């Protein structure tokens, strides 16, 4: 069983606190993704779980074993892990075969079985016929796959992957993430996956934890939850480019920006006076006229396949894109300063004050 329990884990370097009182449970057999912006402490958390670092406070358990707290420390080699490092860490003096076979060699697997399993794993990551090469003769992406194979070959009960696919092209990335997912299901192992790429996170995870720049976890949930029901604007905006439209409440009425147009959506719960309606550019419909919020195209940019518009509605701004074909076909090629009408399919409401703090979290 490889359930990971982190309890009040803190890690500081000198004066700088990277993680502060973090509590988190990763269930056995799940693919758990840690998603957050660069420098937020994902790698540090992974290294704590692997045992390369020790928490300054709090405890870490893996299954039944306490692996780290104020007085205990189980070294990494006793934690039954497979780790893929952000910087690959492929051993330059060993061939691909020897790199991948090293965990089995340490485990004293018989030679024939070892060779079979190594070749199997090498095939799994699409490196067949490269097994005799040295890492210096491989591309970055190939090295990354060697690292992946090395982590997989020992069939560990827990896999820690730090951006293991960052250097692969789109096709290969899709294929590899499928393989990882397959393997995780088949072997029923726990995978902790670290990335700042929300697309991979959504595709691969059973659950996702979104971390902010301060190393705090903002939300934990299924990919659908995170995407559809973000708890705050940080999570929302981290899951894709986001629009935040200011809305003010006057009595029981909600108005967009500084003007007099009513916000045509379900009302938020709460009695704040200042609100923000958040939505993705893909949820915006722009037209020349008809029903909707009246605004003005402030800046139109031609980006090849799409047109990008910055729209102003009574002092509030939003961005949207229109497929260039559709735009041409439907007379939606706006110029700067032309009037337009905007509809938004679905919005998330956030109290404007919480947005303030989310803005800081980005900084």
């Amino acid at each position, binding site marked *: 069983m*490889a359930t990971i329990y982190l309890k009040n884990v803190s890690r500081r370097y000198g004066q700088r606190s990277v993680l502060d009182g973090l509590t988190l449970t990763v269930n056995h057999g799940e693919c758990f993704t840690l998603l957050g912006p660069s420098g937020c402490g994902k790698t540090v958390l992974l290294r704590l779980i*692997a*045992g*390369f670092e020790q928490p300054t406070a709090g405890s870490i358990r*893996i*299954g*039944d*074993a*306490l*692996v780290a707290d104020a*007085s*205990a*420390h*189980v*070294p*990494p*080699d*006793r*934690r*039954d*892990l*497979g*780790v893929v*490092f952000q*910087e*690959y*860490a*492929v*051993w*330059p*003096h060993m061939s691909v075969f020897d790199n991948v076979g*090293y*965990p089995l060699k*340490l*485990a004293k697997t018989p030679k024939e079985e070892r060779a079979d399993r190594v070749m199997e794993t090498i095939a799994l990551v699409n490196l067949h016929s490269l097994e005799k090469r040295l890492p210096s003769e491989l591309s970055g992406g190939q090295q990354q796959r060697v*690292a992946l194979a*090395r*982590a997989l070959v*020992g069939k560990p009960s827990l896999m*820690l992957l730090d951006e293991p696919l960052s250097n692969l092209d789109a096709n290969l990335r899709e294929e590899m993430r499928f393989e990882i997912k397959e393997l995780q299901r088949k072997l029923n192992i726990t995978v902790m996956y670290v990335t700042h790429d929300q697309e991979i996170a959504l595709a691969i995870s059973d659950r996702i934890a979104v971390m902010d720049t301060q190393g705090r976890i903002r939300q934990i949930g299924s990919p659908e939850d995170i995407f559809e029901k973000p708890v705050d604007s940080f999570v929302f905006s981290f899951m894709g480019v986001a629009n935040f439209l200011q809305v003010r409440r006057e009595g029981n009425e909600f108005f967009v920006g500084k003007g007099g147009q009513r916000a045509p959506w379900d009302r938020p719960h709460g009695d704040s006076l200042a609100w923000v309606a958040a939505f993705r550019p893909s949820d915006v419909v722009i037209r020349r006229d008809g029903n909707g919020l009246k605004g003005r195209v402030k800046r139109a940019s031609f980006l090849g396949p799409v047109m990008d518009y910055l729209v102003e509605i009574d002092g509030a701004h939003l961005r949207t894109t229109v497929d260039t074909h559709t735009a041409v076909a439907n007379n939606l090629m706006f110029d700067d300063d032309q009037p337009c009408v905007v509809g938004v399919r679905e919005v998330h409401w956030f109290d404007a004050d919480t947005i303030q703090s989310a803005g800081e979290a980005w900084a």
Partner: protein
Amino acid sequence: MSAPVRKKFFVGTAGIILFLSIAVLVVFVAFPVVLILFNAFWTKGAFNLVDVAAVLREPDTYQALLNSVFIAGGTTIGSTIIGTFFAWLVTRTDLPYKNFMKGMFLVPFMLPSFIGALAWKMLLSPRAGYINRLFMDYFGFDGPVFNIYSYYGIMAVEVMYLFPFVFIQVCGALERMDPTLEESARISGAGLFTITRRITIPLVLPSILSGALLIMLYSMAHFGTVAVLGIENGIFNIPTLIYERIHQSAGSFAAIRTGTVLATVLVVSAAFIIWLQGKVLGKGRYQIIAGKSFRPMELKLRGLRYPLLILCLAYIGFTIVLPTVVIFMVGGLKTYGLPFTMENLSLDNYKFILFDYKTTKDAIWNSVSLGLSAAVITMFAGVMISYVIVKMKVRGKGILEFLGMLPFSVPGSVIALGVILAWSGKFGVNLYNTVWIILVAYIARYMAFSLKANSAALEQVHDSLIEAARACGASMWQSLRDIVLPLVRPGMFAAFFLIFLPSLRELTVSIMLYAPTTRTIGVAIYTLNEDGETVMSAALAGIALVIIITGQTLITGLTGASVKAK
């Protein structure tokens, strides 16, 4: 999943390595140095500065201090001028055969300077020197043209062997220098001379200074040349006076006092020079901009091209070829003083030294076995210590980092004196008059080389490579064996040869520690020469040169080949 292992255990493995590393440096380096300081400042059961001052004011001591500074100063100035000039010539002008010249100017690095001093003694000693005799016998000179037994003689010989320190640093700086700086000055209308004076020189100044300080450090603590050329006219510097005192009075209290006080002066000035060098280099780092190799602007020498080529060739012929040839020729003579004719020359001396003469046979055996043992031990100790300093995260590492700096600032004669104080029975172990005391001293002396080569190699091994092994299930020892050692092997090889080759010709330390049966090659050459066995001394020196040059060529070949293979 295994049961939790107490932190204590984890710290235990790392702790053992840390403890061992500290122990090695303390036992071999720090302890002897501390004993020297203690003996210098602690007399009659109290801290005593008055006595230290009194020792320094004794005429002999005071004179030796002055001599050290004077000789080091002259040597530094001479070497800096010559080194900078030749470096400029081979990097920034269209001098013919530049690469060959560059290689030749580095040859003195290989040659032991005390053997050079011997050669120059044979050439320029006032009465018997071949050059002086040539002038007196054939050109009717009344006296010698140059007396090598003088301050200037000593300085000249030291310059010949030390200028490569400046040469190599300045070459490096000039090659790395961004030519756009000079080009922009040229565009704004400055002449080449102005550019050199206003742009080039200030930019390479840190390298020049750093090389000069290195020479200063080396010359202050240099034993061989002054011992061979100075003693005749009573010229002593700090190391030779330490040797003289300890040697003459076999460990009397007064001799030890003088020795330790002088050694303290050496350690303090070495530390100061190293500190100063760090400052100078730290500043220079911003100035020499690029790490890449550029094609620097070349000055057309025009009419001076061939005269300068001849000057270079003459310099090489006079300072490298001539002394080397003289050593081999004198080594072949039946008796010193005979003219170099065919019937006077033979290989008999060489045969005798290699196969029949016990003293020299022992010396060669001693040097080779001491060199090998010191190189192997120091290589492994160096890997371990560098590993802790570069790679490990343990408490108490700071102490080790400090101790690790120590070997760099402790000159040979200080180490020798220190090991005498430490290992002559006062602390339960008596190694005096055995080869072991020389081995202990060699380890201390060459630790700096090993630390440098090994930490450079370890810096190249990224932490994640070791962590990846740990994550695959390797214990700390397994990750060391399977990952770290194979990856630092080139550094270890480098350390081995950096120790083994110089130790074959070591003189400064061995001369203070040898007993009749534990002479090294250096000691044997030196004592044979002292005893008037000039031809034997020269023949052994010739053999030493052959061994050193062969070894060096082999290594250059080996490392060159391995670089190509990659």
